[in-house]
């Protein structure tokens, strides 16, 4: 790799973001803008008996009270996991039925936000409630639907033959995303019946398709614009009902409408990480060679969509286990649809499994790092395929060294500092390398610049910057000479910014069109009727430092492009992995979400890491603090160590928050997420984060695509909670098998 790819180039969008120049969705105020406010149901199950809209219709500024009686008819759209683009197939205001607490029952539109909210607060709504709503994952709930199953070898026989066994149950709560940028949108219909929507989006193209479907519009008359996103984490991947309601309200008023969903209202109206429970049986020989993993899980979903995130498929790739049996089920509850949240399948599953591995190490009286060393699989245990690359043990070696792991006394309650209990724990981090596809356009301009156009999203991950670096690298430019346009459905199609796929897919697409533009430039210059390169072989030309060169002949890129008849050079293409079936890669052009992996035809690809955590616990009050964390990862080519570091660090910070703080608490009497604001739903604050070391190891991966870059957006969160729980056990001797781990769990 040369000096541009792989360098810690500062974020190109950083200045715009810190100066306020970056315009987020709701910054796009405009003449005639009206404001919407939601009215949410205080019951979880039943129907709307009556709404007295006349009571507020005359209040100052009120323009519209939209209820199920005057809501425009919508066409159906499936939830994303069922091939559509919607957050949920069930949509409020299509009828009088209420299926979850906090479901919108009316939208009030007024001239100001304050007027709309005031009228919404006063709107008289009568409800007929039905009893029996359940919003939590019930104890001993049988699975109603299978979410995943996997068998390797004879797990039962291996379990029977195991000398050392661990049986344990784990549980994780529902959690909500809480991005800094709230949810909301601005919708405006034009006189030709076209619709423009500003909405924070991980997938402008997919949201356009979903909105166009619902309103029966041609896609070219629908535009979704989202150049900047203030935190998404999976929650802004699909078309939320609140977006559709805003579009519908704007259609009725004939004016642009803005909806800002408040923090409280975001809890019931957006997606969330569903609650889950796992039952694990893990067997090994007395020497610590794993023999059996029997894994069952129950995962919360809603009544109307089977949203499932089976993690067994990933767990099966961690260690060499000859007998594995995974059965994962869904439990339907009366909640809004759950959805993607950073490493949706992996975060709960890895917490449970990596806790169980630690329990096994304790049972074996073995260093937990050594236990992993003894079970490193040479090939993918599920498919028997070779790894595209795998550096888990190197991550453990380096992480142990950075952390000082050799100084650990493995006995629980053995370490103290200034009277506090100290615990050290470790766990594996893992995220599959999903291989998607993307298109892009690159234009060389007469100013000697390159313009990249791609409908991918930069959800804070650094996409603007890495795509500029890749184009600059291929074109012999500096990144500041590259303009990258993202987050607009009129741009070249890209997949959803999910599954940690964007860097590899859109990166390769930009690389490809940059090379094509360069070759097209060389061809045009050599075939030109005049000019310094006339008649030369295109292969003899090169491009570096903004200059076209052939031997001693040079011309600036700006002059070279200006000399061409069209004054520009443009290339458009799609990159798809050669092992992605053509039928799948073509879906990109139909707003599909094509994605391969972790197992492809000839290899299996995952990114791995090793995480180490120190906890410090007050011996009396049992307050848990985390003085330091170490994470060492291998992710193939690191395109930009600065932005990659930030992703991994952010993942670990959230991992701590996941381990110690975050839970959407259910009020069972109301079947409601009760702690619906940031005062009650705690996330980690700066003061919670002590020393945090992130290191990325060199790893070469030739199989996953030309850039060889594994996605790193999600892996950072996956190992933190188990490493922390394992550290809590080490400090206290108390094994906590649920999240978040709180004072009361270790009060003793």
């Amino acid at each position, binding site marked *: 790799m040369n000096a541009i790819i792989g360098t810690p180039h500062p974020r190109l969008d950083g200045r715009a973001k810190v100066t306020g120049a970056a315009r987020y969705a709701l910054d796009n105020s405009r003449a005639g803008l009206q404001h919407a406010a939601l009215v*949410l149901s*205080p019951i979880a199950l039943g129907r709307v008996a009556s709404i007295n809209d006349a009571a507020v219709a005359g209040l100052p500024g009120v323009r519209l009270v939209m209820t199920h009686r005057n809501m425009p008819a919508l066409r159906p759209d499936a939830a994303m996991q069922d091939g559509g683009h919607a957050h949920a197939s069930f949509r409020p205001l299509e009828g009088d039925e209420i299926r979850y*607490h*906090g479901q919108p029952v009316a939208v009030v539109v007024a001239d100001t936000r*304050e007027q709309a*909210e*005031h009228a919404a*607060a006063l709107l008289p709504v009568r409800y007929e409630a039905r009893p029996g709503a359940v919003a939590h994952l019930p104890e001993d709930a049988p699975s109603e639907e299978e979410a995943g199953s996997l068998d390797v070898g004879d797990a039962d026989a291996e379990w029977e033959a195991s000398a050392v066994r661990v049986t344990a149950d784990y549980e994780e709560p529902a959690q909500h995303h809480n991005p800094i940028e709230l949810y909301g949108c601005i919708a405006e219909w034009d006189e030709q019946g076209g619709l423009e929507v500003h909405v924070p989006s991980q997938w402008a193209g997919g949201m356009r398709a979903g909105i166009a479907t619902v309103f029966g519009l041609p896609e070219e008359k629908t535009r979704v614009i989202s150049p900047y996103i203030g935190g998404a984490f999976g929650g802004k991947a699909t078309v939320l009902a609140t977006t559709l309601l805003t579009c519908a309200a704007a259609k009725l008023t004939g004016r642009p409408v803005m909806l800002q969903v*408040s923090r*409280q209202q975001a809890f019931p109206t957006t997606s969330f990480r569903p609650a889950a429970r796992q039952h694990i049986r893990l067997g090994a020989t007395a020497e610590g060679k794993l023999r059996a993993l029997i894994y069952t899980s129950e995962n919360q979903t809603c009544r109307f969509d089977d949203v499932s995130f089976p993690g067994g498929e990933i767990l099966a790739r961690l260690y060499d286990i000859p007998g594995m049996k995974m059965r994962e089920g869904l439990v339907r509850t009366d909640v809004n649809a759950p959805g993607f949240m950073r490493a949706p399948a992996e975060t709960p599953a890895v917490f449970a499994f990596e806790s169980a591995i630690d329990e096994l190490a304790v049972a074996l009286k073995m260093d937990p790092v050594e236990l992993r060393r003894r079970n490193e699989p040479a090939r993918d245990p599920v498919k028997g395929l070779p790894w595209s690359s795998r550096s888990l043990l190197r991550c453990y070696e380096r992480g142990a060294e950075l952390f000082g792991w050799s100084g650990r006394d493995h006995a629980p309650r053995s370490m103290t500092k200034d009277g506090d209990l100290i615990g050290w724990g470790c766990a594996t981090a893992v995220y599959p390398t999903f291989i998607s596809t993307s298109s892009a356009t690159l234009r060389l301009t007469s100013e000697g610049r390159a313009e990249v156009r791609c409908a991918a999203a930069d959800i804070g991950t650094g996409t603007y910057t890495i795509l500029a670096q890749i184009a600059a690298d291929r074109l012999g430019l500096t990144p500041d000479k590259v303009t990258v346009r993202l987050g607009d459905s009129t741009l070249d199609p890209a997949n959803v910014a999910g599954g940690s796929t964007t860097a590899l897919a859109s990166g390769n697409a930009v690389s490809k069109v940059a090379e094509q533009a360069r070759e097209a430039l060389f061809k045009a210059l050599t075939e030109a009727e005049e000019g310094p390169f006339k008649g030369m072989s295109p292969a003899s030309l090169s491009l570096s430092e903004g200059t076209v060169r052939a031997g001693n002949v040079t011309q600036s890129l700006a002059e070279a492009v200006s000399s061409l008849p069209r004054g520009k050079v443009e290339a458009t293409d799609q990159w798809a992995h050669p092992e992605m079936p053509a039928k799948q890669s073509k879906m990109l052009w139909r707003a599909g979400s094509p994605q391969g992996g972790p197992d492809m035809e000839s290899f299996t690809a995952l990114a791995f890491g090793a995480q180490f955590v120190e906890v410090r616990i*007050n011996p*009396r*009050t*049992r*307050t848990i*603090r985390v003085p330091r964390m170490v994470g060492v990862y291998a992710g193939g080519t690191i395109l930009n160590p600065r932005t990659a570091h930030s992703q991994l660090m952010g993942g670990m910070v959230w991992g701590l928050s996941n381990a*110690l*703080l975050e839970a959407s*608490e*259910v*009020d*069972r*009497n*109301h079947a*409601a997420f*009760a*702690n*619906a*604001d940031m*005062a*009650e739903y*705690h996330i*980690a*604050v*700066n*003061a*919670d984060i002590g020393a945090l070391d992130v290191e990325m190891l060199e790893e070469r991966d030739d199989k996953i695509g030309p850039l060889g870059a594994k996605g790193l957006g999600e892996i950072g969160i996956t190992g933190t909670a188990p490493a922390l729980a394992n550290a809590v056990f080490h400090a206290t001797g108390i094994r906590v098998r649920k999240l*978040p781990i*709180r*004072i*009361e769990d270790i*009060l003793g």
Partner: protein
Amino acid sequence: MQPFEYHRASSLEDALRQGALEGASYLAGGTTLVDLMRIGVMRPGRLIDLRDVSELHGFDTGGETLRFGALASMAEVADDIVLRQDYPALAESLLLAASAQLRNMATVGGNLLQRTRCLYYRDTRYSACNKRNPGSGCAAQDGVNRQHAVLGGSERCIATMPSDWAVALTAFDAAVEVAGPQGRRTVPIDSFHIPYGEHPEAETALRPGEILTAILVPASRAGRASCYVKVRDRESYAFAVSSAAVALRLEGARVAEARIALGGLSTTPWRAVASETLLRGRTIDEASIREAAARAMDGADPRPGNAFKVELGRRTVEDALLRAMRRAQEGEAA
């Protein structure tokens, strides 16, 4: 948000006159009231902004009585060097509260009047809240109540009093100075926050139209060996799961004076009288501290969601007493 009128009072008399009007509410730092207005929980028709009332500002920690004007900011009081040295529990109770931005805005008077953080009180989707809708019931009794009180509650309400500052003031027998249509009066801090009884909607001894003008703290020699321990799930910016303000005065190894108040556990600032009595005259050591701490939660009435707080409360007092003991011993050594 409900529409409201806004008046910036020019003097205390002007404020009291305006405050007597229908639907009036006084505005100080605004860090509670404005929040609650935005989410529709409080709906005053008229706000009387007190910021220009000069006599409510400023504070003096020099005399025999420490006096804090109601509008002194939490940040400026917490930064006071005398308070930090001679009454660390008072300074710490302010510093451990909220965030730096909020402490700049919030006032020490308003702090005592902040409303509970009970999530049922703060969310108008729940109809049952005796504080918000008197007589409507209490959704917290068998709801999500980990943060709720185990001391001083009733079947009508178990909302915790959220102020850390009030807890520390309680340990030091502070008083609150009040001005109203009928003149001025002084209310001891331990009767300022009133037990819920039949009417959880009434939280303080303030009568309609009255303004809290100042907080008075009698100087105490126990102040130097005092501390405020705040137990919370995260390191900063969180209300207490439990807290304790403790002050000790030793004579040799014996306890001459012990002051212990609890927070996060109770519906009003809670004086742990039994623990104080037990310590007085005893030799201070880990054994006597543990014995005293064991009595701190006498009378606790927990719910399943917060039963752990009975033991946690004792541990919090133990932790705070150990710290105060170390401060006392260090003070003597110095």
